[in-house]
């Protein structure tokens, strides 16, 4: 349930129009919309929605959307 919500927020943050193409196993770096700027958008989303402090290192360690979601649970 909650990862679904996270995926929607992720899609909004990095401007993926079709949320349906995303799932927990999606490797987010492979998305057409992903760029080095997306990191900033993602950090803002994590701060705003989950009050989580995330830096470059934490994001670098993630491969899938599930990994990113893991940060919000820690």
């Amino acid at each position: 349930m909650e990862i679904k919500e996270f995926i929607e927020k992720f899609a909004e943050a990095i401007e993926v129009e079709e949320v349906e193409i995303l799932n927990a196993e999606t490797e987010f770096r492979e998305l057409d919309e992903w760029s080095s700027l997306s990191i900033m958008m993602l950090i803002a989303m994590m701060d705003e929605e989950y009050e989580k402090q995330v830096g470059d290192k934490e994001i670098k360690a993630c491969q899938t959307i599930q990994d990113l979601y893991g940060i919000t649970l820690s």
Partner: protein
Amino acid sequence: MAVLEFENIGISAMSGAVPKTVINNYEYTKHFPVEQVKEVVDKIGIYERRFVDSSTCASDLCFAAAEKLIEDNQIDKNEIDLIVFISQTPDYRMPATSLLLQDRLGLSNKTIAFDINLGCSAFIYGLSVVYGFMQNKNIRKALILDGETRSKVYSPKDRQSAFIFGDAGVVALIERNEKFGKSYFSLNSDGSRSDLIMIKGGGYRCPSSLETLEEKVVDEYGNIRSDEHGYMKGGDVFNFVIREVPKDLKFLMKYAEMDKDEFDYYVFHQANNFINSYIAKKLKLDSTKIPATIHKYGNTSSVSVPLTIISELKEQFTTPKKVLLSAFGVGMTWATGVINLDNCAISEIVEI
């Protein structure tokens, strides 16, 4: 808790100079595909910047601005007792650039002159330093000369910084007058984050060598730079800024016993559009009170706060205005200022 408080000292005139060469960011496509450039430019909201030519330095921009300010305000040069040059792109490693400017401006040998090397927050740091000097009545007038040629610092082949930075110089005349009332500055530092924004090569820890000059691919995006170029860990900088800057703004407003709505303007360092809108949203600031120049001058480091006042608020000080200043950057350092601007004479921006 380093808050500095001053009374009856303020900025009575300002002027600015920018290079005449306009860089259209959508056309800055030598190293990247047009589509990719468009995507980056749309996201960061930086459409134009100004670049100096290879023979022009930050001090040349400041010199042009200073001559304009002195002429427009009929300043007697003999009354200028202090000049401070703020920059991280000086003419030489030594001597300090302020000395070269003292001579070029024809100021007396009794002038106090020194440089401040700090980064994006340096104009606010510099104001507090000069306000401190101005408490001594023997100093009649002081000039802050703040200039940067960031175009010479970053690799055009590194997306993280290639589209962001621009060149400019400003001058602020500081005087004593009761109309200025109280001003407050909060200055901060966190050297544990010194590696977030850095030019590694060319100092004495890591002197210039064939190795520092070598261009390398530095990340999974294929960005290319050498150790003589500046780099920025954008995500970490952003994470730091959205946490510390709003806290410091709130802290200083509380110290000064002012509500956010009492301010006429909030002038932020022009890092990128996204950071400033995020801070404004977080603090629920009225966005119509936040002037911006990021779209036309880019990030000019320490120059961006005064340049934004000069460019966007030129006609606004016929009645007194309360202005909140905020800047952050390399170091990391971050600073907040509460100042009054009353009849501040702002000159037309000079193009050189």
